[in-house]
């Protein structure tokens, strides 16, 4: 019924081929624009047919992104994009599921789902627009805002510590964990592309200036240089450019996995004045579908969205007689 006839692949798709007709309602200067453009650019590079991309999101400024994409869009509930999209990824592994959403959405109200998604390693890409505030509800502190900070939208300084999404993601079992920055288009596109090419649950935490509410960490602030032992360095720096490599070469080698994971956590949790971007951790592990298929081989043969459940006349094709027999008194 719902077969996915592939449309003839576009000759050479361009970023604009993934733009919908919707005009964004973000504030001028919002970091979100750059992220959406980067995602569209990556789609073009990967050349995925539009209807085979499912753009998921929660609720927030950032979560309006799917409406800007000329792909299927699912703008779900605040904090629930992960369970919704997981359902789709499990039922139709033939599409590419990309989730975008805010830091409040993902690490705040959605924190439980965020953690448990790591335990499953579903094959999808999760892009979090991290602006340290709840944008759409007028700038309250989000879970990534540090203790004691007070952007102009707060009545009192933030009494909560911040979460560390990267460390949590590594501990939770995400198999690709990266950070990028909305205004570093090259790095951002490269990172999103790597995330999408990764087989398993990938997260990219994207630093996103919100000029309307976050007057602490602005585009200018990220663009500054910081002084370290006498010399000046750009605030935002690429760990991989400095030689860090978070990728596990041999996932079967327990020693390597152990060592690399601790290195990743050390890199992530080391507090410094600069802001590190890059891929902190990557490992190949069986995806949730791989695992489910082991105990349910039919899933491996036919994804559920393709399973035939009725004949042309609407007669159910599931034959329960063998099962009925177990309950029949005459058996």
């Amino acid at each position, binding site marked *: *019924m*719902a*077969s*996915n*006839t*592939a*449309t003839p692949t576009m000759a050479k798709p361009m970023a604009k081929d993934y733009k919908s007709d*919707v005009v964004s309602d973000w504030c001028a200067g919002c970091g979100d624009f750059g992220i959406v453009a980067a995602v569209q650019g990556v789609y073009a590079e990967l050349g995925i*047919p*539009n*209807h*085979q991309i499912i753009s998921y999101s929660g609720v927030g400024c950032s979560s*309006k992104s*799917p*409406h800007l994409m*000329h*792909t*299927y*869009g*699912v*703008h*779900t*509930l605040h904090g*629930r994009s992960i*369970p*919704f*999209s*997981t*359902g*789709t*990824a*499990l*039922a*139709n592994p033939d*599409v590419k599921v990309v989730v975008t959403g805010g830091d409040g959405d993902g690490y705040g109200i959605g924190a*439980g789902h965020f953690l*448990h998604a790591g335990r499953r390693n579903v094959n999808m890409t999760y892009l979090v627009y991290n602006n340290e505030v709840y944008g759409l509800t007028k700038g309250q502190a989000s879970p990534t805002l540090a203790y004691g900070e007070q952007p102009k939208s707060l009545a009192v300084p933030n009494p909560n510590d911040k979460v560390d999404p990267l460390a949590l993601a590594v501990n939770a079992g995400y198999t690709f964990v990266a950070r990028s920055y909305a205004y570093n288009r090259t790095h951002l596109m490269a990172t999103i592309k790597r995330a999408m090419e990764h087989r398993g649950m990938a997260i990219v935490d994207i630093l996103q200036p919100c000029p309307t509410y976050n007057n602490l960490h602005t585009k200018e602030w990220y663009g500054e240089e910081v002084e370290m032992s006498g010399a000046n360095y750009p605030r935002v720096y690429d760990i991989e450019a400095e030689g860090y490599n978070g990728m596990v070469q041999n996932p079967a080698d327990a020693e390597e996995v152990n060592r690399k994971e601790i290195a990743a956590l050390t890199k992530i949790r080391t507090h410094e004045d600069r802001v590190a971007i890059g891929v902190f951790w990557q490992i190949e592990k069986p995806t949730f579908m791989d695992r*489910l298929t082991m*105990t*349910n081989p*039919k899933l491996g043969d*036919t994804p*559920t*969205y393709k*399973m035939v*459940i*009725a004949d042309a*006349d*609407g*007669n*159910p094709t*599931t034959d*329960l007689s063998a*099962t*009925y027999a177990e*309950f*029949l*008194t*005459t*058996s």
Partner: protein
Amino acid sequence: MPTETPIVNHFSWTIGGPQGTGVDSSANLLLRSCAVAGLYCYGKREYHSTIKTGHSYTQVRVSGIPISSHVDPVHLLTTYEKTAAKIHADEVVTGGAIIYDPGVISADDLNCQDGVLKIAVPYDEILDKLAEEMGQPAAKVKIMKNTLAVGATLAMVNFDMAYIEKALSGLFKGRKAKLVPDNMLAIRKGFEYIQAMQMNGSSVVDQFPYKLEAQPDSPAQMIMSGTTAVALGKLKAGCKMQTYYPITPASDESVYLESQQKEYGINVVQCEDEIASVCMAVGAALTGTRSATSTSCPGFGLKAEGIGWAAMNEVPVVIHDYQRGGPSTGLPTRHEQGDLLSAVFISHGNPPRMVVAPSDMNEYFEDTFHAFNYADQYQTPVIVLTDKCIGNNTMTITPFSEEGLKINRGKLATQDELDRLASLKPELKGQFPRFGDSDDGVSMRSVLGQANGIYWNTGDERDAYGHITEDPDNRQVLMNKRLRKMATAIAEIPESQQFQLYGPKDADTTILTWGSTKGPILDAMPQLLSDGFKFNVLVVRLMSPYPVEGVSRILSKAKTKIGFEMNHTHQLAQLTRMETGFSMDHFINKFTGRPISETEAASAIREIMSSTTTSKKEVVLSYGK
């Protein structure tokens, strides 16, 4: 000295003991033995919200004719430890009997009525001897007390041993088959011990009037409990995605489906909570996979937001709520029908919500099947209100009929249709007006991943393509469209799936009921009718959209209306008044957490129908432990 003429195939038996000591398996064995002998059975399970220590019991009613409830009198109480004997002794009728272990309780401590036979079975002694005979350690053999108890029981009713053996091999299959011989030995020991037993000079068996006679010509039955019936309905309907979070009594259904994954390919996913469960099912449903989630009361409330979103995005998804005692955690392993109004009005802001309430085991199967059709036809979440009573009880039923069960996926767009539309409007570049208005409120639906079916979902108000719009006129159109589906549904769904009327159509008195409460009322009906209490029973099966016309037609003919359900505020009566304006004159109610028996139903109906209209507004029942 046989004191009475035998009472054949009318038998009520209780077995009790601490949870985890084999009460359930004894009851299952007895029930299955009787069922394979062509008898009709109903097994009521009562257990605490604990794992091993609470007192649990099962009351099995066996009958020569089909039944769907228990009765209050217990004819035979079988125990093998002290607590059950203490708790249940007073429930046994005069002329009945108690099997007890004299090693743990003395006959004098059995607090029972006069004229109850007290039958001492020295379990330890018998099993020690058996162990010796088998050459096995006593400890290993002694765990079969519960099996021995079944043998003793069946001797009392003169049961034919052949059926027990057949039942036992039905229960222990495959790797477990090797357990059959040992168990048969224990059963035989119990059977023979009772057969040989004399009391006051005559055989105890002769002194016990209740007997079971095989009815080999009875049509085949299924032995079924509600969670399994629902699971089978899902499999038949082609449900391929089931999400859940463990909760009593709902998770039995999911655990059963887990065991069927290999066979039927259904994907069963245990989620991190009930919010994730409903969202994940909806996410799967958006791909065209028939999807469902099952839960119980506290978990159901957590699904409100997801259900609202599904209604807003017109996603077919099926949600079962197994009602148990509320509010809050309430009585997690006990029965109540307390969720009707919170289900019908779940989630804010007038989403279209369909609510179905099956009232017997066969309807558990059928309505589950129908629910997937409704969900697809009306593109909206369908809530199925089940309950602990049918969900956990085990009974013989007519095998499920698959007659006329057709799968209807509603307005699901084929690839050809989408391609044709796309070729007419290439400027749309594969976008599809999924939420376009339509006369019946239902639009054509593409699924995620389909070429030329691109659209957007959102919890916000949307335009035809699914993009957010706050335009007031569009808003009005879409609110009307979504709720119009409810009118379409009530017009299209066959009346027999909306409600059912049992008994004489021309009766002046109508009893209004729903769900598992139907069972005891219908069981009580023949006797009451023949005693001159003329009434009919209106069972509402579709709660939302409500069958206003049909129910009004029937209630308008009733001079006296009795609401009969199991929740403090009579929620079906409340809903019926809201929808039709008809009020109930009397109520029969029970909210102790225990289901209603045929005995109670009969006496309450008698009481209400005998009294003058003013004298008794409500009968509140409370029998049962």
